[in-house]
């Protein structure tokens, strides 16, 4: 066991050396910590799957336990945003790259990240339907009204009006980018997909 971890240490150091050059915001030591954390999480997984990387369930656990996310759909979307090659597993590289934006990203990077999260269908646009899906639980339904979803639909229209600068009925990346740069509050316009301020402050601890 000891022998193996010694071997691992060497491996991890090499990997960290390579990765920290490709990824912003983390130095070598921090990268090393993240890799070690990653392999720790992998260890809890069944051997067969570990070969591919973190699966969706493990990843969602982290999002829930460490970052306090609760919305199922958002967590799945964040998973997809991390999983760049769409193989339903998060590789060590995807892990480090994803976290660098997630924890330390500059505004531009975060805009890109959030857009990827909200772009449920992956077609490069956030459509009315996607918004409706993401906001469906954001308002108390008024059962007395004819259409209880009317409020939600209205809010979707409000959001669309605010963001759709080129009036094509959907929000493109450049629409989204412009909106958020005008009003930072709209970065997480369709749901909580970034750690909140308190976690950000403790992110150093997370990387130790």
């Amino acid at each position, binding site marked *: 066991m000891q022998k193996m971890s010694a071997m691992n240490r060497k491996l991890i150091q090499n990997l960290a050396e390579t990765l920290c050059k490709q990824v912003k915001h983390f130095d070598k030591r921090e990268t090393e910590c993240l890799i070690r954390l990653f392999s720790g999480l992998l260890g809890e997984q069944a051997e067969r799957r570990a070969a591919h990387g973190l699966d969706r369930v493990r990843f969602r656990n982290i999002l829930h336990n460490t970052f306090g996310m609760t919305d199922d759909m958002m967590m799945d979307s964040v998973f997809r945003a991390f999983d760049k090659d769409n193989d339903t597993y998060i590789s060590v590289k995807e892990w480090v790259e994803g976290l660098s934006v997630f924890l330390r990203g500059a505004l531009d990077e975060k805009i890109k990240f959030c857009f990827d999260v909200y772009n449920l269908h992956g077609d490069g646009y956030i459509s009315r339907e996607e918004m409706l899906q993401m906001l469906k639980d954001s308002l108390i339904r008024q059962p007395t009204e004819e259409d209880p979803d009317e409020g939600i639909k209205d809010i979707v229209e409000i959001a669309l009006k*605010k963001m759709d600068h080129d009036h094509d009925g959907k929000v493109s990346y450049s629409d989204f980018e412009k909106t958020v740069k005008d009003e930072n*509050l709209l970065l997480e316009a369709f749901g909580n997909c970034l750690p909140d*301020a308190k976690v950000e402050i403790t992110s150093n601890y997370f990387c130790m």
Partner: protein
Amino acid sequence: MGETFSRAIQWSSDADQLENSPLNNDILTEILLFTEDFDDRYPKEARILFREPLQWKTSLEAADFTSDIYDTRGEAAVSLECDDNRSPLLQLSPPDITVHSFYHLSNLLQLSKDKTMKEIRACLEGDTLIVHAFIAILLLLVNELYFCSVCVFLPREGRLSPEAVNTEVDLLKRFCGTGENRALKSVSYTSDYVFSNGCRSPPWRQMDGEICSLIIETCDTEPTLFITCSTSGVFFDERINGEGGVNYYMRKSELYKDIITLLKNMSPHFAVAANEQGFFYNVLLCMDSSHFYPEKILWESTSPSVCLKDIKLWASLNINMSNRCICVCMHSKSPGGAGDFSESSSEDEEDEEQPERRAEIPTDLPSEYWQIQKLVKYLKGANQTATVIVLCALRDFNLVQETCQLAIRDVGGLEVLINLLDTDDIRCKIGSLKILKEISCNSQIRQTIADLGGLQTMVSILDSPDKELKGLAAETIANVAKFRRARRTVRQHGGIKRLVELLDCVPNGVSMSAEQERDVEVARCGALALWSCSKSTRNKESIRRAGGIPLLARLLKSSQKNMLIPVVGTLQECASEKSYRIAIQTEGMIEDLVKNLSCDNQELQMHCASAIFKCAEDKHTRDLVRQYEGLKPLVMLLNEAENKQLLAATTGAIWKCSISLENVAKFQEYKALEILVGLLKDQPEEVLVNVVGALAECAQISENLATIRKSGGIQPLVNLLTGTNQALLGNVTRAVGACATDPENMVIIDRLDGVRLLWSLLKNPNPEVQANAAWAICPCIENTKDAGEMVRSFVGGLELIVNLLKSQNKAVLASVCAAIAKIAKDVENLAVITDHGVVPMLANLTNTGDDKLRRYLAEAIACCCKWGSNCVSFGEAGAVAPLVHYLRSKDPSVHQATARALFELSKDPNNCITMHENGVVKLLLIMIGSTDEILQEAAASCVANIRRLALANDKAKYG
């Protein structure tokens, strides 16, 4: 609220101690805050004496009474202020303390600092009744309602009593009158006879429970109302004139529970007065009657009776057990008016709370209204994500437009926005504050935010680690705290200290990190909020105590104008306090203020000039302004004559700086006088006051007198003598007086009839104007040809000036004596003023200790001796002995005038004897040794006269 309070106060089982429960402590805090502030808010009322003093066992000691309104003797302390019987209004003989007015109560609480809570508790325990009194007043004041009258009735057992009816009738009578705004014309009983049981109705009617009958004339119902009060209620009846002159009544209306209720139903006019103006306001206070003692009146009004409009705030509180009711009459100030209650002189009228002007909702509401209503509805049921979207959508409305601002309020949006400030979600808070910050530029919104407790929440947000959030909260506070009550709320919830903490940053780092820049932005927001808050005197003090001055001094080094404006704005506001003026000088802020006089922003320039204006009363500050080369930029700013506020501040600074002669020399060099003279026309009064003040100071140097004349200044100055502004007249009289010392100027003044104008200002009620006018008259008489003739031509003028010798004001007396000395040089006029009794009046003043008055009084006496038997009369009026003592004065100018007076008086032998008896010779011998030749000569001549009398006496005796 009153109900909650009185019920909530928890007494311990033995009923004379307040339990130490959190609830009691909260109530005590409320009472404490109210009492501490009472003196500030209702200065006049605070001075009214309690019918009976408050007494309790205090923990304070004589050593705590440090303020100069007290006198401490050993262990005891008393206030210097006394009542008519000369007993002090506060008396401490440990452990007992007696207090007679709110003024002293509130000062006492301020003295006790950390012991305040203990004191107020002890005070309340000393007298259980006072608890209810406080609660009743608190109920009225804390709510800040515009009450006119409030009756707080104790529960009655469903039946009226004669006493209750009496009280109600007495109350109603106070609101009858002849004015347009009266609620009723008259109220009277049908019978003056009162039976022993208190009823007025005839015995056979008493059988039916009747108490009395009333005739009430309302303003709008015809005919007169006839009302009968019975134990079961009040009804009004139709009078049927029966046979035999006996009046029969038929019950006509339903029963009302009291007269006021009946009147509200019968007279629309009365109902309007009652409801809209808050004329009558009935509150049932369910109090436990065991807490009341019979017949005790805490506080009684001495104000004239009530008229509905323009009434000053006034409270009287009667607690009367036998009538089983508490009657609190609050005569509130008329809405929106009355600057009497401002905490600070600088409070603008626009800052005053506006009365609610919630117009009826017009039929054609703009579409924004409905959109905003919908968004606010969503806000109420949205989660964080949707909330942020909706808040951003709200921000897209034109929030500077009043329709949008009021729409948000009218659909209940302010409640929601303020509630959001209490959530955990930082984005919701930021979004909400961004809206509140915009709409709080509206005064009605400000008031509603304060009413809803928004300030308290915003103050607590100032502790947040998020800098954007802190900054927004401070900026919003800056907008809301534009009226007195809001400023007080900020202070009372610890906002001042927190805001001062925001100022802590390095304003001018060489290469600032993003974080440091954010700190600077937060500091700027903090300064904005402090600027708003600093309009209250107490807040100025709190800022200082929280250590704000050095932080402001550091921010003053900033190069950003948007930082400097609130910082200098705060400083100039606070410079009304001496502690700040000293600090501005010692912390080196004058240099920065001077530097910014030359910036390119007029608002900043104005605040800098205004700060210098307020600080330059101090000589060292004036010197510093010169040393840092601030005088030239000030003169340059005089060219910005279009911006009147800037001009007023600049001329003010120039005025105060010109008190130092070195500065006047600089102003001459910069040709400031010529520009100032040009500003004597077509300027607002606040500019004129300063311009004329500056000219008056500059005219102390004689070469400037010609400059003022040559640039055409005399005529506009003389013209200003006809004005009414007291501050302006005070300065104009000084300036004209200074100009009159130049004979060429005097020719112009005389031609413009300036002396007559000056003379008529002796009738001005303001002592400063009177004194300055009298001073100005002196050089006029001296420099006018045929001055005697001119003075005689003023009908009643001599009598007027002699009568001013009855003034209580020392400055007026000194100036009038000086003028009389000049007048008396004309023998004919001397004869006239002698007839007007100048001699005994002057003699009356001789016991003064004021050196300035002594000097001019002696001069006047010297000059007045030269007519008829005046010399003898002065001796008979007892003027001689006090004059001798003037020679012991430390002021050499007193000596000369006195010696001259004594020399004149020594021409009468009896006066010589009096002088000799008072030891004059020894004193005069010292004066003879003076270097002042006039003094030498007068003293020597006086001694010679005394000596001659002695020789003559010897000769007569010994032949």
